[in-house]
């Protein structure tokens, strides 16, 4: 059983590339699972679609979720995650361009664990990724449901 998977749900290739680079720069060597939108993410989490038959005991340690995505956006995805008992306790961090009050409120209402705005400056972004990895992967204690 593999542990410490980080799931990144992001439709923007550049942002994805930069996020992965930030992980690399911070020497985060965990397995990264990538989903391009909410639908893909849910397929993975619930073992449906292309991920049918996946071992559902393996769940990500943390999910980095973008808000604006095609097909299924971040908020809806979050709702689905929180709505299923298999995934409802998974730590979800919203990582987005938006710092709108409404987006934040909605995210927290849907049970997000953290809300981080992507800084424009790449060095700051690297720093943010470092801190969130440290926090969620190392410091944070979390019950394992499966």
């Amino acid at each position, binding site marked *: 059983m593999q542990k410490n998977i980080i799931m990144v749900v992001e439709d923007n290739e550049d*942002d994805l590339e930069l996020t992965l680079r930030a992980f690399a720069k911070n020497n985060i060597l965990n397995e990264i699972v990538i989903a391009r939108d909410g639908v893909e993410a849910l397929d993975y989490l619930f073992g449906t679609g292309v991920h049918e038959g996946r071992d559902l005991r393996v769940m990500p340690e943390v999910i980095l979720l973008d808000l604006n995505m095609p097909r299924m956006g971040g908020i809806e995805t979050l709702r689905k995650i929180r709505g299923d008992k298999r995934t409802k306790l998974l730590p979800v961090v919203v990582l987005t361009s938006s710092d709108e009050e409404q987006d934040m409120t909605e995210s927290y209402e849907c049970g997000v664990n953290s809300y981080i705005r992507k800084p*424009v400056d790449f060095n700051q972004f690297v720093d943010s990724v470092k801190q969130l990895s440290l926090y969620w992967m190392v410091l944070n204690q979390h019950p394992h449901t499966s």
Partner: protein
Amino acid sequence: MENNTSPASKKSNGMRRHERNSRILFILSLLAYALLMFATREQSGTAILAFFPIVIAAVCWGWKGGLIAGLCAFPVNALVLIAIGVDWHGMLNPIGLVGHAFLLFQGLLIGFVIDLYKQRRNAEQHLKFQVEQNAADIERAQAAEHQLKAVLEQSADGIFITENQNRTIVLVNQAFLKMTGLSREKLIGNTTLCFVPEIGKTYRTTLGDKITIDTQYYEDNYDILQKLLTDGMVKGWEYHIVGPDDKLVPIEANVTNMLDQQDQRIGAISVVRDNTGHKLAKKELSKTNDYLNNIIENSVDCILLSDSTGHITHVNQAGIEMMGYTLDEMIGKAAMEFFAIEEGQYETAAGDSIWLSTKDIEAVYGRMSEFFEAGKISNYASYMMHKNGRLVEVEHNISLLYDQQGEIVGSVSMARDRSMRCRMERELSRQTELLSQANRELESFAYSVSHDLRAPLRSISGFSTALEEDFSADLPDEARNYLQRIQKASTRMGLLIDDLLNLSRVSRYNMQREPVDLSALAVKIIEQLREQMPERNVTCTIQPDIMATGDGHLLSILLENLINNAWKYTGRESSPKITFGYADKDDHRPPGHEDNATVFCVRDNGVGFDMAYVDKLFTPFQRLHAEKDFPGTGIGLATVQRIAHRHGGRTWAHSTPKKETSFFFTL
């Protein structure tokens, strides 16, 4: 005179009766004398008896004059008899017979004389009595006349009496003298011409106006005079007399003809009343009425007057125009009829098309019911129906009218045509809605653009950093320099976008007004700045307990921007000072900012700015200092202004560089 049974006439009748009886007695006594003479013709001394009938006659008359005459007759008789030489015995001879005949004649003569005398006496007595009677009558008449004159004198109305034909004045009373200002001497014996206005002359009247006496005036009065002659009296005859100071006095006269016993007109009595006061009061009343009528008729509002049963008694011109009916069509109708409406689509008098729902109509009737409860209703929005079916939107006022006893006598209803205004308002509200919709779209556009711009910006920043990191060794210094510039520029653009987002957020923020302690906010902001930059030593003076009403969050952003600015621009001073408080009275106020709003002020002794560019201060992205001297995006003051505007306030600034720079705001 028939019924005048005076004592004088009674006495006269009695005397006549007495006379008649006396004559009969006298004749009877003559016959007795003749018989006696015949019987005693041979006896002496019987002649004495010759006097007897005369004495009897006198006594019978009961008048001492008769006795004297009889006694006087005796010596005369005797002398006559002696002179003719008769003796008692010779009485029957011819001479004696003559003597007897003479005696008889004498008796008759004396009786006749006495009779004449008595008649005369009676006549004299009667005349005297008549004279006395007349004197008493005259005295009584004079007393009555005196009383009458006193009454005439006392009368408050002027009275004058004229004689026939030449209209000579024979009597005037005090009131009339006062009215004309002439003396009694001047009037009595004169004609009425001395107080009648002259033809062709212009007079001032006691009413304060002027009258020219024309021929028409005279003709009119002549007609009335003719009427007096035929009818015998004229009542309420209005004409003028010339009063004191040659002013005409308007009078009202009642004139009655005076007739003699043969019903011939012998003159006229005029009772005249000074009409000045009455006319002035009437004039004043008519002036007031004219004034009120003018107000009603010239009002631009529709004015409906109704009686106590709510039926229209008058509509002014504006009302006629507003509703399209003629006055006759409206008079007598129930006023409410013109305010009756029902649900439906209407075209208004201003050409607008509106839908009146049952709810709208209930609202109108709901307000109208206030009138029935309170007797008065002010400025409620109502509707009237024009004859052409168009709806007139009005602002309506109704009040009950009461008389002096507090009884309802009617109501006055005033309606102002607001159709055009309502149309404008609806137009305005449509435009406002469109505008705010456009604004919302613009805001949302700015928001999404800002967001969407951030993503590629991250890529630019990220990949240029990656390029520099990963391929640094292969790149010439110039290329590395360019890459750094790209990173810096994208970072700055990120800041700009963030500030723009903040600015747009200030506009979209849902404000909540509450009391805000600005002093406490300022203290907190300065504490934060001191924490962030402990190396700075700034003297900060915060006036305590400055309270304002506004949104705490927005006001915090406003103060943060101003104090941060002050903090930033005093960075090069050796002894920097920042103050926050109320503006002073002598502080500069630009035109249009002279109202009474409380002015707050943040001051510093920093670098300041050139007053030539003061207009650009509050415009987004406008900066008055180089980025390298004082970094910033130029959004801060624009944000300050937008927050002040959202509170209904204003901002302005004044600077004397390096000495004192003040930023003012009102809320």
